[in-house]
C-alpha cells in the first residue's frame, strides 16, 4: 500500500493518495489527470479501465475511474472533479483505454460533463431531444414529458479539442459520410436479442462501420436507486442482466455487507454460490439456444430450453419464482433451500452433462456452424484488454479475466475448477468457452452439493437479524463479481443516510457493445448476427 503511494507521488507530485480505504484512492486535478493516466497505464501496468462512475457531489461534478492491474489484479481508483457546473469539462482517456469511449458518453449523457479529446461526444442512452442531464441532483423530472413523435437520426457528432494555449474549441463532424450506404437494423429486430439498434454502413455486403444506438430499454435504474433504501435496491439488480439475476443480486448484497461489516453464515454463502452457478448454467444454455437459432438450427434451441426448465424448476421450488428470484438478502438468504434441493441439483447436473454431449453432436461439428463461426469476428487479446471485455468473450481471446480466480470472492477459493481460456477470439471460441464453462459449473455444483450436505441440518438459520432500514456509514465501496457475461461491478456512495447518494452498476454487456464495430468491420452483414450472438449481450444490462 505504502509502495503504491510512493510510486504515484513520484509520477505526479500534485496527486493526493489515500490508502486507508479498501482500494487506494488517488485524487488529482483535471490538468494532471491525462498525464497521470498515461503513466499509470504504461509504467504501473494498470491496463484495464474497469469502471467510470460519473458523480455529482453538489459542489463539484466529476468522475471516479476504477483501474485494474493485469499482473497483480489489484484495483485502484482515481477521483477527478471540476467545480464548473455551467460548462463542466474533463480530459478524455479514450486514447489510452478505448473502453472509455462509451463510458464517457454515458457520463456526458447523465451529467453533461464534456470530455476534451473524445472523438464522438454524443448522448448514449437518452433521446436526442432530451432536455437536461437526469442524474444531476438539480435535475427537474418534469422537463421531459412523453413524446410520441419519432426522434430524428443523429447524423452529426462533435468533439472538443484543446490547442497549445489551453483554449477549448468545438469541432462538428458527421457520423457517416454523405456517400456511405447506411442500413438500419432494429430496434425491434429478433436477432438483436432485445431492443438494440445498429446503423451499419455497407459496401456491398461488407460492413464498413457500425454505429450502435442504445437506450431503447434504459429505465434509469441508477437514478431510481438514489431514492430507495438498500434492501429495496436489491430488486432492481435482478432486472438488469436477468440471465445473471442471482449473481447481480449477490454482488449488491456483498457490497452492502462489506460497507456494514456483516458476516454471512457459511451455509447461506454456500447456497448463494450454488444459485450463482445454476444461474450461469442456465444463462449459457440460453446462449447456446439463441446462437444456434440465429444460424437457423431451430431444433438445437428446443434442446437448450429443455434442460433450462430443470434449472427453473429448482429455482421455482426453492425461491417461488422461475426468474428474478429475489433470494439473496443482505446478510444471507431469505430462507433455507427446499428439502429436495440437493437431490434436484445432482439430477440436473447428471442430465445436463449428458445433454452437453448431445449438443456437440447436434451443432458443434456442423459444417454451417464451423464455416460461419471459425475465423469470424476476431477479437485479439490486446483489444479485449483495451475494451475491458471480460467473461467468456474475453477468455475466448486468451485473457485470464475470471474474477472467481483473480479476486476470489464468496467461497470460490475452496473449489476446484478450471478457468476456460481459448486463444483465437473468434465466434467459435466464444461459443466453445461457454460450452466448456458449463462443464466447470457442473463440477462446482457437485462439490458444493457435498459441502452443503456436510454443512449442517436442513432448516438451520441462514440470515442474521438485519434491520429493515439500515444506514451505511459515509464512504464509497466497489464490489466485483463474475457474472455470466463478465465482471459485474457495483459502486455505492453513501453519506450516512438510509438512502445512497450514488449507485453505479458496471455491466459487462455495456463494454461488449463497444466491440461490435471492431469485430464486425470487414465482415459480411449476415455475420453481424452471428458475431453479436456469440458476444451474447443482454440489452437491459447495457441500458440499465
Amino acid at each position, binding site marked *: 500500500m505504502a509502495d503504491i503511494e510512493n510510486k504515484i507521488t513520484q509520477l505526479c507530485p500534485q496527486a493526493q493518495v489515500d490508502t486507508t480505504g479498501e482500494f487506494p484512492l488517488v485524487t488529482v486535478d483535471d490538468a494532471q489527470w491525462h498525464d497521470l493516466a498515461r503513466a499509470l497505464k504504461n509504467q504501473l501496468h494498470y491496463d484495464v479501465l474497469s469502471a467510470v462512475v460519473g458523480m455529482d457531489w453538489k459542489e463539484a461534478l466529476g468522475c471516479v475511474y476504477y483501474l485494474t492491474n493485469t499482473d497483480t489484479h489489484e484495483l485502484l481508483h482515481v477521483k477527478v472533479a471540476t467545480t464548473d457546473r455551467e460548462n463542466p469539462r474533463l480530459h478524455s482517456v479514450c486514447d489510452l483505454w478505448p473502453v472509455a469511449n462509451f463510458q464517457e458518453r454515458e457520463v456526458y449523457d447523465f451529467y453533461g460533463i464534456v470530455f476534451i479529446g473524445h472523438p464522438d461526444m454524443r448522448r448514449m442512452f*437518452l433521446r436526442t431531444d432530451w432536455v437536461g442531464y437526469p442524474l444531476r441532483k438539480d435535475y427537474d423530472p418534469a422537463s421531459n414529458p412523453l413524446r410520441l413523435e419519432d426522434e430524428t437520426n443523429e447524423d452529426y457528432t462533435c468533439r472538443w479539442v484543446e490547442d497549445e494555449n489551453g483554449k477549448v474549441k468545438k469541432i462538428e463532424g458527421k457520423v457517416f459520410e454523405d456517400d456511405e450506404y447506411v442500413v438500419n437494423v432494429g430496434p425491434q429486430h429478433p436477432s438483436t436479442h432485445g*431492443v438494440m439498434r445498429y446503423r451499419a454502413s455497407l459496401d456491398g455486403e461488407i460492413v464498413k462501420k457500425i454505429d450502435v444506438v442504445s437506450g431503447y*430499454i434504459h429505465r434509469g435504474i441508477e437514478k431510481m436507486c438514489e431514492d430507495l433504501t438498500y434492501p429495496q435496491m436489491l430488486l432492481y439488480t435482478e432486472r438488469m442482466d*436477468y440471465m445473471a439475476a442471482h449473481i447481480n443480486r449477490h454482488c449488491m448484497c456483498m457490497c452492502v455487507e462489506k460497507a456494514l461489516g456483516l458476516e454471512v453464515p457459511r451455509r447461506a454463502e454456500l447456497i448463494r454460490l450454488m444459485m450463482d452457478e445454476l444461474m450461469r448454467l442456465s444463462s449459457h444454455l*440460453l446462449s447456446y439456444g439463441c446462437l444456434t437459432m440465429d444460424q437457423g438450427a431451430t431444433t438445437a434451441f428446443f434442446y437448450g430450453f429443455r434442460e433450462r426448465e430443470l434449472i427453473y424448476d429448482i429455482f421455482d421450488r426453492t425461491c417461488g419464482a422461475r426468474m428474478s428470484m429475489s433470494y439473496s438478502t443482505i446478510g444471507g438468504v431469505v430462507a433455507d433451500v427446499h428439502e429436495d434441493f440437493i437431490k434436484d441439483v445432482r439430477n440436473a447436473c447428471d442430465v445436463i452433462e449428458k445433454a452437453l454431449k448431445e449438443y456437440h453432436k447436434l451443432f458443434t461439428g456442423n459444417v454451417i456452424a464451423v464455416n460461419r463461426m471459425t475465423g469470424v469476428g476476431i477479437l485479439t487479446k490486446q483489444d479485449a484488454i483495451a475494451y475491458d471485455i471480460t467473461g467468456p468473450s474475453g477468455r475466448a481471446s486468451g485473457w485470464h479475466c475470471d474474477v472467481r480466480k483473480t479476486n476470489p470472492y464468496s467461497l470460490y477459493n475452496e473449489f476446484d475448477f478450471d478457468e476456460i481460456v481459448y486463444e483465437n477470439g473468434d465466434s467459435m471460441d466464444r461459443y466453445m468457452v461457454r460450452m466448456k464453462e458449463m462443464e466447470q459449473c457442473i463440477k462446482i455444483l457437485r462439490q458444493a452439493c457435498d459441502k452443503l450436505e456436510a454443512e449442517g441440518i436442513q432448516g438451520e438459520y441462514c440470515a442474521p437479524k438485519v434491520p429493515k432500514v439500515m444506514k451505511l456509514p459515509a464512504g464509497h465501496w466497489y464490489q466485483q463479481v463474475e457474472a455470466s457475461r463478465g465482471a459485474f461491478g457495483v459502486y455505492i456512495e453513501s453519506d450516512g443516510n438510509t438512502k445512497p447518494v450514488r449507485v453505479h452498476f458496471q455491466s459487462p454487456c455495456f463494454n461488449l457493445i463497444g466491440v461490435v464495430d471492431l469485430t464486425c468491420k470487414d465482415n459480411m452483414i449476415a455475420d453481424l448476427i452471428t458475431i453479436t450472438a456469440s458476444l451474447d449481450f443482454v440489452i437491459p444490462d447495457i441500458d440499465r
Partner: protein
Amino acid sequence: MEVKIKSMKHEDFKDNEYIDNLVEQLRAGGTNIIVGKLDQLMNWGVSNSLWPLCFGTSCCAIEFMCLGAARYDMARYGFEVARNSPRQADYIMCQGTINYRMAPALKRLYEQMAEPKYVIACGSCTVSGGRRVPARLPAPSRGLLLCPDAAAAQDQGAEVLWRREPQGETGPQV
C-alpha cells in the same frame, strides 16, 4: 347428386329454404356438409393462427421463449409462428418496460399491424409501469403480481385471447 355453385342463381343464396333443401339432398347422398356464416369460418381460422410479433424488451421475453419451447408449447394454439414484421403479425405480446425512447417505436409497430389486432401486456412493467400502452387485453391477473410474467401466466394470457377471438370480441381499450 351433382351440385354446381355456378348453376345457383344469385337470389338462391339468400333463400334459406332452397339451401336447406340442397343440404338435405347432399346429406342424403352421403356427403358431409356444414352450413355456417363465412365470418365464423374466418374467425375460427384466425383464432387458431394468431401470430405474435417478436417484441421482447426485457425479462418477460425469456419467458416468452420458454412459452415457445417444448414444455409450454404455444404451438398447440397455433401461435408458434413468431413474426418479425408487424405486417404479418396479429398480436403484440408486449414483454417488458416501454420507456420514452421506445414508446414511439411501439406505437408505430402497433399502427403497422393489420386488423384484427391485439396487444397482450405482460408482466408488471408493461401493465403498471406508468406508460400508456394500447392494451386491448389485460394479461391474466396473476401477471400483475409476477415479475417477470411466468411462462405459465403468458400461456394463460394467450389462451384467453384464443378463446375470445372466435366470437370476434374485443376487450376494452385500456
